């Protein structure tokens, strides 16, 4: 199958139009395999991606570039119970997940 999606990269354009990720502590809810994560994480101070799907998170961890090992973390978690302290993040991204 030859599916292509968003070859125009509209999603990335609008994401950066709506948010400045530079130096931010970012929480991505519904990160899945990290498809969206890799489009902004290099700019952040810290990125935490959560998703309830264990298999998707395994792919995200495998795909994580070596230069992002220290600042991009993935957790298996549900958005109803975020495993983080109060006021831990500057920016939260609901990635196709509300």
């Amino acid at each position, binding site marked *: 199958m030859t*599916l*292509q*999606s*968003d070859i125009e990269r509209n999603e990335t354009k609008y994401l950066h139009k709506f*948010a400045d990720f530079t130096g931010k502590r970012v929480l991505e809810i519904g990160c899945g395999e990290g498809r969206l994560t890799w489009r902004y994480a290099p700019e952040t101070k810290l990125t935490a991606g959560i998703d309830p799907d264990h298999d998707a998170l395994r792919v995200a961890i495998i795909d994580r570039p070596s230069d992002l090992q220290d600042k991009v973390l993935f957790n298996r978690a549900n958005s*109803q119970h975020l495993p*983080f302290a109060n006021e831990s993040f*500057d920016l*939260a991204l*609901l990635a196709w997940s509300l």
Partner: protein
Amino acid sequence: MHALYEIQRVLRSDGILIDLRSISDRWPIEVESARNIQVTGHVLDLPASLADDEAANQAIAQAAEKGWFSKEQEEFFPYYYSWDSPDEMEDFIEEAWEDYIGLDEATMQATSSVWALADADARVRVRTKMLITHWRKK
């Protein structure tokens, strides 16, 4: 709703929430080539997708009413999925989106006819509608 409570809890004061998601809106089906783009029909929105949109809209509206977030900016933009042929599109929709959208026979026939007569580089695509909203924690 509880997810939005949790998000405002872990965001710092004045923090930002970006809500990015697709919105059901009888997305157009198009046959696209370098020379031409032709709309051949629209997908059918199934009850599950409409219910998901309604639930999400209600949850964020309630969070705003509670004073957790205020809306600062919102836009729609297109997000395209494309395939080499109408059959590939149909297979994908049946496998991946069967609970959310459907295709009627007339649309499939029209898409197949237009694609068959189009230029050799023609692909079939669905133009989904994306919503992106910038909220700020109060």
